[in-house]
């Protein structure tokens, strides 16, 4: 019985994903292209050699960082759409240090990362304060501050931080090598430091949410802020701390983009990774363990599909279509499953709903017949 239930759950997760693949295939057919060829190209785009695979990992690193941060804000019941802007601010702060601070390389890198965390947290706490103190919903605050961060980047690139020769809005001068994160090995261009940060962040978030007072307070704040407050949880402070943590993680993600992926500051340096992180978290429905796996799959699809433009003349937004469809269908099917369970639950007499059934006229009396036990009825 246990196995059946697991299988059913797994099936209900697999079904919407298969459906989203089928719909995407139909869309590809609709514009007269071959879906199988697309699959082959995406696969090659992600795995054709170590270089391509390193590209996937380099995309997945900031994505995992953002997703972990977003799990924290979602736990506190907050929609941190501002995560994109927080990445950009992290990138900005790190870029400032990379350009104007003169330190030995390891110290400089440490300083850049700390600054990036500060930058992201700052941008996040502003949105949080607007929400908590001043009643501006965090979705609108987030959208506005994303745009502000991007406008500010373009101002810096085309103004004070403009390269001296051939200045354009394309980006700043490449940063000095001492300021960049070192590569793991010349054959496999991935930053070891970033991988270590990911592992630390992963366990820190998982343990903090499961086993600490802070995690419990966040959960209480997210589930029911009013009763949490009445029970003595400092809800405002825990919500703000959730914003700060997510901002700091997003800040590192932004720093990684400029200090490793690009080597300089560019407009829109977040590249939509923050929004993708929101999709990842919605897909795994708050299960931290699944984040790295789903983020990796998303990265394969995203990075792999950048090859479509060259090989098939197809727009790479196909990746976004597939990911969006998959998450939408998973969220809808989760709703559907709950409705179905509720229905089968309601149709059967269990002690709990006998207790709540006023027409029976008994309260707090459990009928001790075997067929009313909860275990037996759920699977009928």
């Amino acid at each position, binding site marked *: 019985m246990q196995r059946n239930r697991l299988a059913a759950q797994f099936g209900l997760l697999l079904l919407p994903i298969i459906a989203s693949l089928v719909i995407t295939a139909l*869309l590809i057919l609709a514009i007269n292209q071959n879906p199988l060829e697309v699959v082959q190209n995406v696969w090659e785009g992600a795995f054709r050699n170590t270089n391509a695979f390193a590209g996937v990992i380099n995309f997945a690193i900031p994505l995992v960082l953002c997703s972990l941060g977003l799990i924290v804000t979602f736990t506190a019941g907050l929609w941190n759409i501002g995560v994109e802007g927080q990445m950009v601010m992290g990138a900005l702060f790190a870029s400032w240090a990379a350009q104007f601070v003169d330190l030995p390389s390891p110290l400089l890198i440490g300083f850049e990362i700390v600054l990036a965390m500060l930058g992201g947290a700052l941008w996040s706490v502003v949105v949080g304060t607007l929400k908590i103190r001043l009643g*501006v919903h965090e979705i609108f605050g987030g959208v506005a501050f994303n*745009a502000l961060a991007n406008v500010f980047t373009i101002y810096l690139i085309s103004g004070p931080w403009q390269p001296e020769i051939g200045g354009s809005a394309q980006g700043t001068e490449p940063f000095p090598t001492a300021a960049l994160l070192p590569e793991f090995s010349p054959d496999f261009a991935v930053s070891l430091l970033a991988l270590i940060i990911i592992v630390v962040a992963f366990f820190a978030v998982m343990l903090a949410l499961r086993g600490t007072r802070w995690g419990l307070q966040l959960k209480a704040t997210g589930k029911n802020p009013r009763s949490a407050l009445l029970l003595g949880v400092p809800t405002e402070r825990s919500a703000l701390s959730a914003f700060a943590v997510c901002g700091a993680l997003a800040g590192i993600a932004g720093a990684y983009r400029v200090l490793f992926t690009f080597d300089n500051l560019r407009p829109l340096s977040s590249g939509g990774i923050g929004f993708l992180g929101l999709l990842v978290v919605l897909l795994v429905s708050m299960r931290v363990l699944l984040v790295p796996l789903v983020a990796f799959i998303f990265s394969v699809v995203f990075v792999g599909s950048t090859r479509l433009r060259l090989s098939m003349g197809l727009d790479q937004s196909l990746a976004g279509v597939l990911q*969006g469809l998959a998450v939408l269908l998973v969220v*809808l099917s989760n*709703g*559907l499953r709950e409705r179905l369970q509720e229905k089968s639950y309601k149709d059967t007499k269990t002690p709990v709903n006998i207790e709540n059934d006023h027409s029976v006229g008994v309260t707090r009396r459990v009928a001790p017949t075997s067929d009313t036990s909860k275990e037996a009825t759920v699977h009928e």
Partner: protein
Amino acid sequence: MNDQTLNILSSIIANATPLVIASIGETITERVGVTNLSLDGSLVLSAMTGFVAAYVSGSVEVGIAAAMLVGALIALIVAIGGIALRCDQVAVGFILTLLCADLAQFLGQEYTRKPGPTIPYWPLPVLSEIPVVGKILFTHDALVYFSFLLIIGTWFWMFYTRAGLAQRAVGERPEAAFARGVDVNRLRYIYTMIGGSLVGLAGAAYSLGIKPGWQTPPVMLGDGWIALAIVIFGGWHPFRVVFGAYLFAALRALSNVIQGNPNIDVSPVLLNMMPWMLMILTLLAVSSGGIERLVKLLPRRMQRSTRNLLRSDPPAALGTRFKSD
């Protein structure tokens, strides 16, 4: 008034039209208690669909119909997710925002930067002859006139008809409405789809009207969020919502004038930041109790009427679910 001022005012009316239609659509939706957060994506996808349908068929009417259909379908997904499946409306809306933008970019890739049909210019015969007002209000295309009718019609429907009363009741006190024999969830589906089709129409108002054609990144990206903020700023009242939309378009026009004038030296960065600053500031004004404090400064007799005028409470049942049992 000189010709230049008249032209600017007239262009403000024209440029505000998509925002007006979209924010009225969202007002209609939110008044029954459903939040359709997908506006930013809906506008983009319906604009693309509208343009492509008009381009392929050669008929603007087909384009408009297609755009409205797309808007209504997206709204239907939000409604099914929120009402029947009881998912998080915000989550469904947000996913659709991203999905629709990508879908538009993918399906529209063959049609970027192509000249296509547009809604014809149609100055109204007699009305456009009225001095000043005629030039500002009645020398546009049919969609602009439709938006005028829509504003008045929505206001009248909401506040002076029985059906409009039921609509507002569903958004404020669904239990009470249900007890009076209103089918709450049916009305929610209907009005959400009407609102969605208006958002689709607004998309067509970009791609077949003020910003003809299709390109990536889409020109209207971000306007959906602004329309959502305008609904809050407007306190869910059609007239104030529309006022917000025109105000926004006016400030945009002003920033264009400033940018085009070599004598005024303002950083374009500041001007690009303006819409977003404005969004935060207006939301701050309505949410932080600042208005209430300002009202208290007025003479006592005027306080009550001003408060009623500026009141901006969301529909009480916004984003909640309703179960009839």
